[in-house]
């Protein structure tokens, strides 16, 4: 039992601590043999782990959809078959001709591209209808949002704004250069300090969510 706990908890924590300390040392102290030699290796490992994540996610996706097909889930199972066929087709193309193959390129250009563009366009139209329904100045905060939205559209996105009133552009730029900048600065400082604290907590073993180990 104790060995199992060590394997599940202490070992990952130890790996995190060693890797984290080495990367911090490499960042702050230049020329330190331990860190300067080991950090490039760690970076390579990270790339390799990342490389494993992709096939793993494909595998879990295939398993999930095979379950749907096996259960014949109403309204879903035929889409799962279609998805598996496409995955197999793309994998076959990728392995035989690489990403420069004719069929691979054509599948992307004539199937994926129109579908993705349609989805983006549809989202725009849904946002349009939704903004009519819900974008009401019920509260001062909502009113601020509406004014900001008008300013962004008339001063930045659509040139017609500056035809209606030439001041929209400079006004939007003023808000961008000063108000937005101040907000972003506060945001960046806040998130950076939080990230540092989170990093320290993770290295010290207080944050264990990435291992799915609850205290």
């Amino acid at each position, binding site marked *: 039992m104790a060995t199992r706990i060590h394997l599940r908890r202490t070992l990952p924590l130890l790996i995190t601590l060693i890797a984290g300390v080495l990367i911090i040392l490499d960042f702050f102290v230049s020329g330190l043999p331990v860190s300067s030699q080991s950090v490039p290796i760690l970076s390579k490992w990270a790339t390799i782990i990342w490389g494993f994540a992709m096939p793993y996610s494909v595998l879990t996706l295939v398993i999930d959809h095979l379950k749907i097909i096996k259960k014949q889930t109403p309204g879903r199972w035929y889409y799962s078959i279609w998805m598996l066929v496409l995955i197999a087709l793309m994998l076959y193309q990728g392995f035989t001709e690489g990403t420069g193959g004719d069929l691979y390129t054509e599948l992307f250009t004539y199937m994926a591209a129109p579908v993705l563009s349609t989805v983006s366009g549809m989202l725009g139209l849904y946002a349009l209808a939704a903004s009519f329904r819900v974008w009401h100045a019920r509260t001062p905060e909502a009113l601020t949002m509406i004014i900001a939205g008008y300013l*962004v559209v008339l001063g930045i996105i659509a040139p017609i704004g500056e035809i209606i009133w030439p001041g929209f552009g400079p006004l939007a730029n003023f808000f961008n250069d000063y108000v937005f900048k101040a907000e972003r600065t506060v945001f960046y400082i806040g998130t950076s300090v939080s990230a540092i604290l989170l990093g320290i907590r993770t290295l010290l073993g207080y944050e264990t969510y990435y291992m799915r180990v609850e205290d």
Partner: protein
Amino acid sequence: MTESDGIWSKILNLDRRIITIVAVLLIVWPLVKPIGLPIVVNKYTYQVHDLIDSYPEDTVVFIDNAIGLGYFGAMGPAFIDVLTHMTSKNFKIVCFSGLTPEGPITFWKCWNAVPKELTDNYEYGIDYVYLGFMTGGESTMIKAAENLHDLFTYDYYGTPLKDIPLLENIGNYEDYDIVLYCTSSEDYRGMMYRIWGETFKTNLILLAQRAVVPVNMIDAGLIKGYVRGLRGAAEYELILKRPGAAIAQLDAVSMFFIWMLGIVAIGNIAFFMRKREAKAG
């Protein structure tokens, strides 16, 4: 009269399909018959243009093209315009796609859209090279900055990197005069500032979709210029005096957003009038 059958309630319950159909008509109209709305060029777009303009011939540009297919309409023209400017100055171009597997498709679409008179004298492997897609996120990007030859063994066509003349003397961030990051996503921007702007102090230019300019990053020197989506692309076309796809599409964008602002205003008036009627009644 109940609250639900008044004129304001009817307006508030306007069929979504009517809103959508009017929007589609307003988008199509300027595409069929362009209005030619005047465009004011933003200072941030000028910064990008001036930076590129300040470099001599044979300047080496390293590009990460992360434009996804779904947003090609919004981001493609900006990339085409900047490529047009760079090729007009005979820059050497090294490109890869580090963050989206659709990168190879969008890169070649953009490259082929650059005016032929500019790319005709470009020879693959000598003046430009495309390395394809490489997964790995941040670690890949660091490796691209530290040693490109460690990251890639072959280019997009399977030619070994050692056999590509352009890459004989190009291998890390010190060799890239300008770094261009084109993206349709929000996800990796911070990483790009960190790696290219902060750690390696390169001249990073950002082509992105977001309307609001990251002024903090420009002031901090982490990015040297920003072209914002389709609007930025239209501005760039104006600076280059080469009217293209972006200027043509911007009229449609204007009409769509004017309709959006109009119906939001109508929705608000109806919302408050209905509320007032309900109180009075």
